[in-house]
């Protein structure tokens, strides 16, 4: 487990001869093939002309890639506008959720107050409702406060979430109590205990929350579909469905090109997220 073994050289020596490691790596590679194949398939389909896209065996890496499907995407929909809208919505939601979930998660995990469990369950219970069941009342409310057809209608209701609260609560609960007593003895205030001690230790959780939230809202479909009506306000997934065409006459290859294009920004965010946050945490991590 304790992978980052720079400090424990003897262990590394011992592990290096362990044949189990080779098996582990092989198994992990096997799993990655299964995980990546559908994505590669999507990419390669997007690079083939529709007539060629259904050949078997599939040409996993197109020898003669055709970029016409990508051109078709740009010709069909104003990708730049959708991209910008999606970015505004997603980033606002991510920032909002990181703040609210860190605070609430910490409170539920580490602070005692009357009705704590009740309130936690109240919040948790809202996680259990399918979106399809509440979309109508939510939209009535959105129109009531004159937010229909605005990006704010997607952002405001999503600034806090039961999911994020629960996630951060669990992360905070995994951190030992001892840090707090030690810090209090050193004269730290409650806020400092939270902000300077526990929060940095839960950075891993925040990174996870950020990436998951980004991903979830980037690909969100149902709410934008109902809330937004003006094409200028559309987010990416909403715009991309236009590629499917009337009665399924859109080309599968063009649809795939759209999927790939919408995947790229999330990939970038993920690359940044994982490099700076998760990896950074492991290095600087929990020395105790």
């Amino acid at each position, binding site marked *: 487990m304790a992978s980052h073994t720079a400090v424990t050289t003897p262990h590394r020596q011992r592990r290096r001869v362990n044949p189990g490691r080779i098996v582990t790596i092989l198994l992990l590679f096997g799993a990655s093939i299964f995980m990546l194949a559908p994505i590669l398939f999507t990419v390669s389909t997007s690079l083939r*002309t*529709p*007539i*060629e*896209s*259904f*050949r*078997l065996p599939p040409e996993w890496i197109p020898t003669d890639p055709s970029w016409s499907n990508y051109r078709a995407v740009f010709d*069909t929909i104003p990708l730049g506008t959708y991209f910008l809208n999606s970015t505004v919505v997603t980033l606002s939601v991510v920032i909002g959720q990181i703040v609210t979930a860190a605070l609430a998660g910490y409170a539920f995990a580490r602070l005692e107050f009357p009705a704590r469990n009740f309130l936690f369950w109240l919040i948790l219970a809202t996680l259990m409702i399918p979106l399809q069941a509440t*979309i*109508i*009342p939510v*939209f*009535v*409310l959105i*129109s*009531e406060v004159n937010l*229909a057809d605005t990006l704010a209608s997607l952002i405001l209701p999503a600034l806090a979430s039961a999911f994020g609260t629960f996630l951060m609560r669990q992360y905070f609960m995994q951190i030992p109590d001892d840090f707090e007593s030690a810090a209090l003895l050193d004269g730290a205030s409650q806020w400092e205990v939270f902000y300077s001690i526990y929060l940095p230790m839960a950075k891993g959780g925040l990174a996870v929350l950020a990436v998951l939230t980004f991903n979830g809202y980037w690909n969100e479909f149902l709410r934008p*579909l*109902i809330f937004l*009506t*003006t*094409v200028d306000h559309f987010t990416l997934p909403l715009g991309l*469905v*236009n590629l*499917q*065409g*009337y*009665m*399924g*006459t*859109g*080309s*599968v290859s063009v*649809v795939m090109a759209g999927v790939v294009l919408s995947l790229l920004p999330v990939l970038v965010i993920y690359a940044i997220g994982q490099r700076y946050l998760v990896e950074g945490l492991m290095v600087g991590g929990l020395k105790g």
Partner: protein
Amino acid sequence: MSTRERRFNRRKFVFTASVGAAAASAAVGATGPASATGVARREHYAFMQDDQTLRIALNGAQVGEADEALAAGFEEQFPGSQIEFIPLQGTDWNDYFAKLLTLIASGTVPDLTTVATEGTQLFAGQGLGTPLDDYVNQDKETLQEYFADVHPSLVEAMMYEGSLYQLPFDWNAANMYFNLTALGEAGMEMPAEDWTKDDFYDLAVALSGEGGGPPFGYGWVNRLWGGWMPWIFVNGSNLLTEERAPGGEWLWDSFYSDNKAAAGRGGGWRWPEPQANVAANVEALDFMLQLLSEGVTPTAEVGGGELLQGFFTSGDVRLTPAGGFWAGGLHNAGMAPDTFDVQYFPQWKSQRHQFGTAGMVMIQDGQNKDLAWEYMKYHVSKSTMELFFADNPTTPARRSMMTEEQYATTGPSNWEVFYGTLDKFPETAPIPAPPQSNEMTAIFMSHTSQAMSGQVGAQTALDNMQRDLEELFSS
């Protein structure tokens, strides 16, 4: 306060009051007093009032440059008006209606919306759509030219209990598409228009690969329009019993008095009873199962049909039912006009076809009804339609647009089949779509897939379908 807002508030009031939940009232709070006025009757709205925004819900794929151009043209013709499109994408019409109704339930009421046969009676029957009879009667002169250009079959499909609800804009019958490259490789030729179900069978078998694998001679999508419904129709049957509602003379006498094809038309279709398990339907489904077991067809696709189009394009599926909308679809998918063609569906007990048609519905709760009517007329005018149909995304309802030139770039060369379906086979009728067509379609598709997956035979599947349909029709 505008009528539109009042309608919103009435809905919210109804909603809030009925729910009676504290949280909901808190959320919707301020509507209480306002809703009292909201219940008041809608005032008549004079044409050209302050708010002249027309909200038009479209099946999303159709919102493109053509629609923008349409809107611009209208705004120019009616200065001060503004078109706001609400594009909703559905994988099929059912899905589109689901999204549209969600929107309406939430209080956003479009003035106009595209509705296809699948939903015509749903909208009319629920009182969502406005009967156009008065508008049409007032505008007889303008509309003479339009109706003269549109086949009465299409117009009749837009009627419900004697009233007209839509002006047909586009339509599609399920004809048979052929991959000519595959046909040529097999040394075969396009069949004649009076080909039979047996000719079809021989052709499909000859075009299929060995051992039950691809390529397949025939393929289809499990859906109401153009699934296995065309076989029910050419076998002289239907899923439900058919009859014509009385009425409609006002329209036929005004616009079609000298058109023989309009003789005997009524006030729209009625489908009073299910008859899923009649012998002709069992025979049709058995034929589908036979094609499946002999490796002539893959199992039916689900979804919107993009996979089927892909398989047809690549030659993996050689024959398939589709309509004029495939001309544009195949062209976009990169098929040259001479690599595919179209023919009538083969003759079985009859050669009647099934079709679906679509057009705008004027929403009953809409605000600018007079302006909406102007848009409806504008929408089906020839110049507007020519703008929209440039790439043949679907079949235009106007006969005069079916020309050599129209299909020169996209193909197919046998394009005359499209409108010919209505002329040659007067028994041709719309797919069955009573007001409860959404539930009916779900039942139809579910039992179809059960049969096609080999769990039950055709007779049992259709007996079960009949049982479920009877329950639906009795409730």
